[in-house]
């Protein structure tokens, strides 16, 4: 009862994202009749999954009014570390387990570095994560100077396959959504939003703001690591530059999803929609058969239009 009541816009800053998402689905379905087939939908989920995962992690950081400009670099580091470990250990089952575990550990370590610098040493978040991002990217290049190395086919076949009849990528997305749903019902999440909404007030209320911000960066590192693993499944090989484009894409997805860069307002659901919107825009451009020279222009204009829609809706809310 109450939860339907809350759909009324005040608490759903991502309503606009949902509208844009549905519009893009319709456009995509017109341009590509097979769009609504299950296999195609699954394939799109697989294509958008890495960006969606990074965007989920980025959301937590942005909710605390911080930002993680190293997320894409973390994806690259995890990607090359996992591939190197799996190949180095001979591609056995044990090597895959070790690769996955260490990959996630590496993501968490990167997140911890960001969190310690920003929350405890009080470095400025934009500059700090920009700099740590360069360090992480450099580390990725050191581990694997050029794209290559391979993981056993079992790995990517499992990723592209199904579990209990449901595609693995859908399981991953559902698990991420479920995880985010649990997080959203913790005291930590309230503390996170309070920190982003009014850090002074949160501090005076006894919220451990530094620990909260650190945890947000850890979550960003964790989800970047998951995106790195997804890309291992997607490409079966390592590429030290693979995550580069994901940093700003994730921030864009978060903002498109209605989360305010000033913190507190928004949520993971919107960011997932935002990531899917970005992916669908690429698809629409693909199926519209636009010449190369026009693609960037059209892509930028669609993103701007989606953002403008969100701003107009936010204004409308304020005036009522």
């Amino acid at each position, binding site marked *: 009862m109450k939860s339907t009541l809350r759909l009324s816009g005040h608490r759903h800053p991502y309503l606009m994202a949902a509208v844009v998402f549905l519009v893009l689905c319709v456009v995509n379905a017109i341009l590509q*009749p097979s769009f*609504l*087939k299950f296999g195609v*939908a699954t394939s799109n989920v697989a294509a958008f999954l890495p960006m969606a995962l990074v965007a989920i992690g980025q959301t937590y950081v942005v909710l605390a009014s911080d930002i993680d400009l190293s997320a894409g670099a973390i994806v690259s580091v995890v990607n090359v570390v996992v591939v190197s470990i799996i190949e180095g250990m001979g591609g056995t089952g044990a090597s895959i387990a070790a690769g996955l575990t260490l990959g996630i550990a590496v993501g968490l370590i990167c997140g911890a570095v960001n969190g310690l610098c920003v929350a405890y040493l009080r470095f400025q978040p934009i500059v700090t994560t920009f700099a740590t991002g360069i360090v992480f990217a450099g580390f990725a290049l050191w581990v694997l*100077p050029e794209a290559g190395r391979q993981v056993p086919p079992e790995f990517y076949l499992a990723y592209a396959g199904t579990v209990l009849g449901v595609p693995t990528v859908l399981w991953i997305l559902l698990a991420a959504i479920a995880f985010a749903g649990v997080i959203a019902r913790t005291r930590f999440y309230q503390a996170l939003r309070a920190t982003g909404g009014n850090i002074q007030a949160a501090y005076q209320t006894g919220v451990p703001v530094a620990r909260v911000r650190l945890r947000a960066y850890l979550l960003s590192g964790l989800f970047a690591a998951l995106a790195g693993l997804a890309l291992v499944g997607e490409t079966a090989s390592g590429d030290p530059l*693979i995550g580069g*484009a994901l940093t700003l894409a994730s921030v864009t997805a978060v903002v498109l999803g209605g989360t305010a860069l000033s913190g507190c307002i928004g949520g993971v*659901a919107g960011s997932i*929609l935002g990531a899917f919107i970005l992916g669908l825009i690429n698809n629409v451009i693909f199926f519209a058969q636009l010449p190369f020279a026009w*693609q960037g222009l059209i892509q930028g204009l669609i993103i701007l239009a989606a953002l403008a829609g969100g701003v107009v809706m936010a204004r409308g809310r304020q005036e009522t």
Partner: protein
Amino acid sequence: MSRSFLAVSFAAVFALAGTLANAKDTFTIGLSNGWVGSEWRTQMIDEAEQAAKEWSKRGVTVKTIAQSANVDVPGQIAQIRNFINQGVDAIIVNPNSPTAFDPIFAQAKARGILVISTDAEVSSKDAIYVGIDQKAWAMQSAEWLAKTLKGKGNVVAINGVAGHPANQMRVAGYKEVFAKYPGIRVLNEVNANWDQAQGQQAMQNLLATYPQINGVWVQDGMAAGAWRALTDAKRSDVAATGEIRVDFLKTWNDRKFNSGASVNPPGCMASALNVAVLRLQGRQFKDGIFKGQYGNALYIPIPLIDSSNFQKTYEQVKDKPGYISVTTVVTPEQAEQMFFKK
């Protein structure tokens, strides 16, 4: 959150919608190019589209969908995914990575889609490669240089990007050739990153360090730079490999260079398309025809331009824009003869 659930289940509901079917004489082929930075790539796509049109003369309709954009590896995978989702019959890729496409090619093959890479070999066992053998390409021009020098002299090499797969194969190629000629001494090998200006700079440095140079082995666009340095230094006595763009051929003609150039034809994608259509028509490959390090390569002939055929080649292309490369396409007839069972 509930909204993305909704989207997924939406898709599931409509999953039973219709399928795409192709008549036997109509094929759709996706062309994927992940880098838009040189006219060579543009020419590659243009020629492939032209080759598709030519098939109508044989009563076969070949539709192409070209995707050309500057994308990273996930971006090119997304291109290929869209081709798969569109239900194309074949996908021809100039790949951004030799290894990263294994999973997506496996998915394409599972859907019965023929996958061909061109210009760069891929490790996937689910794809084949149609294009030149980079090693043979280098061996051919190295052979020309060794013969021109009559098997004796001091040689330098200017290479591309260290560690790049194509570069590695080319280096291995010329090394193998020069090793056969005891009179050829390789004085130095430098990297100029496939950049014309860097090639010129490298040549200048080499000339200053080794005045006794007799021959230069240099690849692609860097050759134009190296030749400029040679001309500036008035070293018409030096023999050097060349490149295949009309601009360079004009200078070659005007200044009477002593040069030889292996052709890496932009028509390779068109050749791959011709092979693809024949395969889609049900033709079987000859036994044991696949070569290369991944065992999936069909190598196409590599023309050589040297003084023996320069005038003929030059006459054919001299009225074309300067950025056009000399090209050859393996015609359907040639492809049938070379690769397919009767």
